[in-house]
């Protein structure tokens, strides 16, 4: 075996150096690239990476409940499911779609129409369905169809509390009433959290809570469910019986200024608002203004008493020919030669009230009306509260001063009128109103002396006795005081001859008033239209039930109150 020594091959040095440089160069490129990615592009890349698995989920905050003063629920939010789809991903047989349509309560044709456009990314199939139905729909296991949770507002009180509570839209934002007025405190703030989802969309890890969801606060209203229900039923019955166009009623607690009941007819069911008319939606007690008619007379008389010009027993000349002011004549239907000031209220004499008013300064009248809350919003914070219309005194002509004495040429809302009567109920103090439950008696503003307020209250009590205009307002067990009103409706700038607004505002019990109840019936057209016949019985029914439910002690002998006999009831002028 011969062996050959390996030849020593000497490679040129430059080749090794070349390879070395190549390797170093390649490493440098890599280092540069990683420096570029790590240091300069890192945020962008991390974001992209996270987007593959991390998701931010919205956590809804529940809207607060609306309760009455006894804790009964008037508005509750409950979770419901909304069914949505990505049309391009849906893969289902027509039979399956029909099944789905019946389960979620929609039309099968409507459903396939919604799914027909594959270019859309998101389409609601049905919003806000009951959780059980949603569960069954989910069990069909159709691809491309998803559900998410929403809250829906329910109103257990239905039409009884519809106008007070109002309602929310489909996204739970307040649209009317308390729901709108207290949106800020009722509405919850949604929170959000970051989670990691796996390939199948299940949440596998909770990373962080970005913002905690905040639930809305519950709100206790001043409304008393029992009195509200009673007021609503009595008003509805009266509006139906007298074939009236509409009606409204307000019950106030004199001591705290709380609104115990507020109802309107016609009303609506807030749980089903598919067919609603504007007339149903109107909260007449707060947003509509009308000429109050005779219910304003006690204020004219109160001012005259306060100024010391007259006393309750002073005689006022009436005469049979009416009172001529400028080119107009004011008439009473059953004129007497003379009435005392107290009888002017009792019989509701227009001539008497006008004659007393003409002896007053118009600036004094204006400022007194204003202090009694007319011409300004009653301050409940309710959306659309009417301020009424009280023109500046400088523009009053003598005839206007005379008609304003009996409530024409001035417009008020029923709530303003009810509030103004707290002046007589609280011995001269006007009380601030509240729709929210408050435990403390409210501090009033003095508008009249206690003496004058008591004198007017005595006259108002006379007005509901036989011989007055409102004996149908009396109830067994409690003394009541109040004033009827029957006003011609304004139409096309004049007064309609055969359209009236009948009203009654009263206090009970008269010895130590606890409640003010104001009733307004718009266009009673079943033969009767006097406030004493149409509105006073509603007052009586509501006051009776409310006083009993509040446990107010009796202040009158327990004798049945007969209906007024022939000639025992005075018919007021309109």
């Amino acid at each position: 075996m011969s062996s050959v020594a390996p030849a020593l091959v000497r490679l040129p040095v430059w080749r090794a150096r070349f390879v070395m440089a190549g390797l170093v160069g390649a490493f440098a490129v890599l280092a540069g690239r990683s420096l570029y990615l790590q240091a300069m592009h890192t945020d962008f890349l991390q974001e992209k990476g996270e987007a593959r698995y991390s998701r931010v989920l919205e956590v809804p905050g529940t809207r607060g409940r609306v309760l009455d003063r006894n804790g009964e629920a008037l508005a509750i939010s409950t979770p419901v499911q909304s069914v949505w789809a990505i049309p391009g991903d849906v893969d289902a047989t027509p039979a399956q779609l029909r099944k789905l349509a019946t389960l979620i309560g929609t039309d099968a044709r409507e459903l396939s129409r919604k799914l027909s456009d594959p270019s859309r990314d998101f389409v609601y199939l049905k919003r806000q369905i009951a959780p059980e139905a949603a569960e069954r729909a989910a069990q069909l296991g159709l691809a491309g169809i998803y559900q998410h949770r929403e809250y829906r507002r329910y109103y257990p009180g239905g039409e009884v509390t519809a106008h007070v509570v109002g309602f929310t839209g489909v996204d739970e934002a307040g649209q009317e009433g308390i729901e709108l007025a207290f949106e800020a405190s009722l509405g919850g703030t949604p929170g959000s959290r970051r989670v990691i989802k796996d390939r199948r969309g299940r949440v596998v890890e909770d990373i962080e809570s970005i913002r905690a969801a905040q639930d809305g606060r519950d709100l206790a209203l001043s409304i008393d469910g029992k009195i509200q229900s009673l007021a609503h039923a009595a008003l509805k019955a009266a509006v139906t019986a007298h074939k009236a166009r509409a009606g409204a009623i307000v019950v106030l607690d004199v001591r705290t200024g709380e609104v115990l009941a507020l109802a309107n007819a016609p009303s609506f069911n807030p749980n089903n608002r598919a067919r609603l008319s504007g007339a149903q939606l109107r909260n007449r007690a707060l947003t509509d203004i009308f000429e109050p008619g005779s219910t304003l007379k006690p204020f004219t008389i109160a001012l005259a008493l306060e100024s010391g010009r007259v006393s309750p027993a002073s005689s006022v000349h009436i005469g049979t020919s009416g009172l001529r002011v400028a080119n107009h004549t004011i008439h009473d239907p059953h004129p007497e030669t003379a009435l005392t000031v107290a009888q002017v209220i009792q019989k509701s004499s227009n001539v008497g009230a006008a004659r007393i008013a003409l002896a007053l300064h118009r600036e004094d009248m204006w400022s007194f009306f204003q202090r009694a809350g007319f011409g300004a919003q009653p301050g409940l914070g309710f959306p659309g509260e009417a301020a009424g219309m009280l023109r500046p005194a400088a523009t009053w002509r003598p005839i206007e001063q005379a008609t304003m004495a009996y409530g024409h040429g001035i417009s008020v809302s029923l709530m303003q009128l009810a509030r103004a009567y707290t002046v007589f109920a609280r011995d001269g103090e006007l009380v601030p109103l509240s729709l929210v439950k408050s435990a403390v008696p409210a501090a009033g503003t003095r508008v009249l002396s206690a003496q004058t307020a008591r004198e007017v209250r005595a006259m108002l009590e006379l007005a509901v006795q036989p011989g007055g205009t409102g004996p149908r307002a009396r109830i067994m067990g409690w003394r009541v005081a109040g004033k009827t009103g029957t006003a011609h409706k304004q139409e096309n700038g004049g007064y309609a001859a055969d359209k009236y607004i009948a009203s009654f505002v009263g206090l009970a019990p008269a010895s130590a008033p606890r409640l003010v109840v104001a009733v307004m019936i718009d266009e009673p057209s079943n033969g009767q239209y006097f406030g004493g016949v149409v509105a006073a019985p509603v007052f009586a029914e509501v006051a009776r039930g409310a006083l009993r439910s509040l446990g107010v002690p009796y202040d009158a002998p327990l004798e049945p109150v007969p209906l007024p006999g022939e000639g025992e009831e005075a018919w007021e002028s309109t």
Partner: protein
Amino acid sequence: MAKLNLLLLLVLVVCALGLVTSQHKARKLFSELERAQARAHDLEVEFGKLQLEASTWALHARIERVATGTLGMRTPDARQVRVIGVAGAP
């Protein structure tokens, strides 16, 4: 030197196992949390339903209908009611 390395390796293994266990525990707790949240949601749904049901049964109009119709009750006359004032209270 080798001893120190071995020790460090041991520590490393213990730490790694600890990480695995705690990760596992976290996953388990998380799924428990998810279950509890789902249950909370179910209870919330039921609570809402019961609240609605309660207020539907307690509707004043319904109570009145049942009292006067089925039970033959009526509102007492004022003469049959005595109001007792509590000293100091309104």
